[in-house]
């Protein structure tokens, strides 16, 4: 099986307490096709390594929204 991997960078400026970090990371990692998810509280960056065929960027944004936070994809 070929495993296509993409790195997507999202930004959220709604992170006001580091307690949200494990919540968002956990929700993203629970998605099929997501290999790595890292939330950086200080800068509000969310780095995701994922297979776009199984989980596209839109799914990532929706999953984060379900945990209660708005995030947007960013070029850098």
């Amino acid at each position, binding site marked *: 099986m070929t495993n296509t991997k993409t790195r997507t960078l999202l*930004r959220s400026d709604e992170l006001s307490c580091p307690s949200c970090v494990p919540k968002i990371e956990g929700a993203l990692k629970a998605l099929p096709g997501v290999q790595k998810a890292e939330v950086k509280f200080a800068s509000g960056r969310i780095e995701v390594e994922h297979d776009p065929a199984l989980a596209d960027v839109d799914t990532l944004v929706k999953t984060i929204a379900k945990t209660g936070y708005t995030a947007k994809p960013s070029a850098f």
Partner: protein
Amino acid sequence: MLSELMTIYRNPAARRKWLTIASGVFITFALVAWYGFGLAAPWAPFMTIAAVLAGYDIALRAWGALRLRQLSIELLVIVAAVGALFIDNHWESAAVTFLFMLGAWLETRTMSRTRGALKALIDAAPVTATVLRNGETVEVAAHEVGVGETVLVRAGERLPVDGEVTDGTAAVNEASITGEPIPAEKAPGSKVFAGTLAENGLLHLRATGVGADTTLARIISRVEEAQEAKAPAQRMIESFGRWYTPAVFVMAVLSYLVTRNVELALTLLVVSCPGALVISTPVSVVAGIGRAARAGILIKGGEHLENAGRINTLALDKTGTLTEGEPRLAEVVALAGQSEADVLLWAGIAETGSSHPLGRPIIEAARKQGHLPTAEELEEIAGMGLIARHDGHEIAVGSHRLFDHLEIGFDAETKAGIARLHDLGHTVVIVARNGKVAGLLGLADMPRASARPMIDRLHALGVNRVVMLTGDQRPAAEAIAKAVGVDEVHAAMMPDDKLERIRNMRAEGLRVAMVGDGINDAPALAAADISIAMGASGSDIAIETADIALMTDDLGKIAEAMEISRATLTNMRQNLVIAVLTVIGLLFGVYTGSIHMAGGMLVHQLSVLIVILNGMRLLRVPKASRARAGSVKAKATRVAA
């Protein structure tokens, strides 16, 4: 109407805002009814509705975390709020949930303002670019521009890519990269950066860097990495935060079992989030580093911020750092009855045909005094000088080696003049006409205008040893040192000597910052407590390796970097004190019975807000530091007067 409501509902931020407002409205109704009209009936139902409205979103988040087997703050708040409803304490339940939501909303807004310093940088890069393809202009996404393509930038537009100007001129404001507010003139051949602003003109650029491969993107990702790098104090607090919440949970259960006091147990749950504590240091670091980035100062992490704030010794190179790095004509000495103007004119005539770096300042000075003809014949002797023929005269310009070669002797007056210029640290150029020495030119690398105020400012900051380490000879080094106010001079140093000097100073217990260009001084930079690279916008190596990278050559930024570091360090300490006092005060208040649920939530949320607002003060440093720079300058002029 319904679809509008659904849109709001699907957007977490909007949903929270409206739920909070609705909850607040019901609380207000209940309060007015009770205290204004003495109506008891609406109290319990209205407060319950308020609690449910505000609690709904908290419950959603709590459930989301619970499904991932995480014990969240939201869960504790919900347990406390539901518990309060069961013991018929409707007001406490409504107040706790409402204050939690209101606090979170305010915290989010202020926190994003704190991150805002960087947001301005991110937003500086335009989303689209105008590209010239097959002779037509097309609008494409900025990151889809191909390297080598021609990009058009009109007046008032921000540049979408890094590139080189191929056509047109413009004044470009590079404040987003360098922090320098005065626009730079760009003409064909100039390097330009994405995110900078063309204030006039029309530029054609050849794209050299696009999207994530632009200087702006690199700066942003460096700054963010720096903000994310956890300082030791922060790691400690975070591990504390991890056991604090469960510990308070256990305490609440134990307290209930021992005292059978439901309210005490629930209040403990409410105050169980160490919110102010866990964000106390990151808030200061994010604000401090962001604020520095906006001024063109890249501080590569909280750790460096801490180190830079404690510096008391600054070591720097002379050439290119304290001086302009380019020779200027400092003195013209006329000999053998010639006039200074003639000496300069003859030297200028010979130099016009040459491209030697020492020639440029001579030509410039000669042009200033009038018409400068070109020599009819010119012979360049590498490493020695020039022999030119003009108007039937032979002009020789160069070092003493040229004159040894031509076998032209020096008389006593010439020898004395050469010796005097040498002692001043000048490079001596000898000018002769028709086999006779006519005069001398003294060239020197002049100190930068900003060097003296920068060193005064550093002294005022408590950096009391400013040390010059230079490969130059002592006379030249001392002349500059005296002019700019350096405390200590070490001349004729090899790179290894510089390294040794830095090590010795650190062994003496000094905290040393080293300023260098990042390449020649690499060993010495690595040995210092903090390494600072200057003029880094053009060099990736400097951005990568230095602890602090200054995007411009402006020396004032060194002092500014120190000021920001100190301010951030102080801010961090204040935040820690506020946070620790809050935690102690809350626990004490809960056990002595002076704080109940609503009060506990209020104090907790207020402490978080205070910590964030305190961090935000760092973003305002520019004015303060400008004022300080002004006062130092004023002091300097007073001393001069």
